[in-house]
């Protein structure tokens, strides 16, 4: 099952999804498509003129082009997601206003989809971290059961 994660570049979340036999939808895969294709015009600026246009699917024309450009990266993740794990207040998810609004829009779009979503807070203590890992594993096992049920 394809599982979207938030923050979309989290190593721990992606690694645990791979361990449990699912496929993580991470932003690095989207970046890879961009940076290894000949479409990019002027690196290291990673945005092309088509990106804000692609982002129009998720945000209105009044929304700044930076947010729409970022949504063109997160968009395929939202589209393909069959389940999602969202971690709030992750320190490395912090960024400028464009990043913050794109993050809010991504989380909103994932929550609005009719898919199983696990919502967690970024752990601040040892016990919280262990609890978080157990919750993620339980959620992923539940997805696996659901998948095998639907196959039957």
């Amino acid at each position: 099952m394809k599982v979207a994660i938030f923050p979309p570049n989290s190593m721990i979340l992606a690694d645990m999804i791979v361990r449990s036999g699912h496929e993580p939808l991470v932003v690095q895969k989207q970046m890879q498509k961009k940076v290894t294709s000949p479409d990019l015009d002027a690196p290291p600026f990673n945005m092309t003129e088509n990106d804000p246009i692609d982002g129009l699917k998720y945000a209105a024309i009044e929304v700044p082009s930076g947010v729409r450009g970022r949504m063109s990266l997160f968009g395929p993740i939202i589209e393909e997601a069959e389940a999602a794990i969202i971690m709030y207040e992750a320190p490395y998810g912090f960024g400028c206003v464009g990043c913050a609004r794109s993050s809010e829009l991504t989380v909103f779009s994932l929550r609005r989809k009719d898919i199983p979503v696990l919502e967690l807070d970024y752990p601040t203590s040892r016990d919280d971290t262990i609890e978080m890992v157990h919750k993620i594993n339980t959620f992923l096992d539940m997805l696996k059961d659901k998948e095998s049920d639907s196959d039957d």
Partner: protein
Amino acid sequence: MSEKDKDIDSEFCHIPMGDGTYRDSDQKDKITRMIILGPGCSVSSKELLNFLHMLELPINIRLTCYGANLNGYPDLVMEAVEKARELDPNHIFIKFRGFPPGDPRRCRAKRGGAREGFHQIEAEYKLLPDVSVALENPRHVDLNPPKKVELDEFIDIVNEYDKNKK
């Protein structure tokens, strides 16, 4: 653009470097994975590198301070990743990476300073000891949030507490 240039574009990845130069890359069908050794891992990055070399797979391996970067065709990279993880499953973590190793647009040798993704690894590295403990002791937990206490029940509890206090 001539027909020949078009063929080159479709066959290789013709990446402009931003300074007027172009780099022909063979990265089109290749993937990159980072192997990150968590704290308390039973192998060092040098041992990991030797192990990966001994696999004799045609992939590009780059030794780093946190582990290794692997670049190559998907099936070969995934084979190496799975075998490397078996060395110490609870302390070895895998991260995806978009840019190939040594890419001049991101490599710190060209840009100076840490690559952007390194700060994120640094932040998550602090959680890895506890994640390893949890992976060693797997347990299923209840995902439903605890139910809220009814108002009447809460009033009873407060009253009982007050009565006991007096």
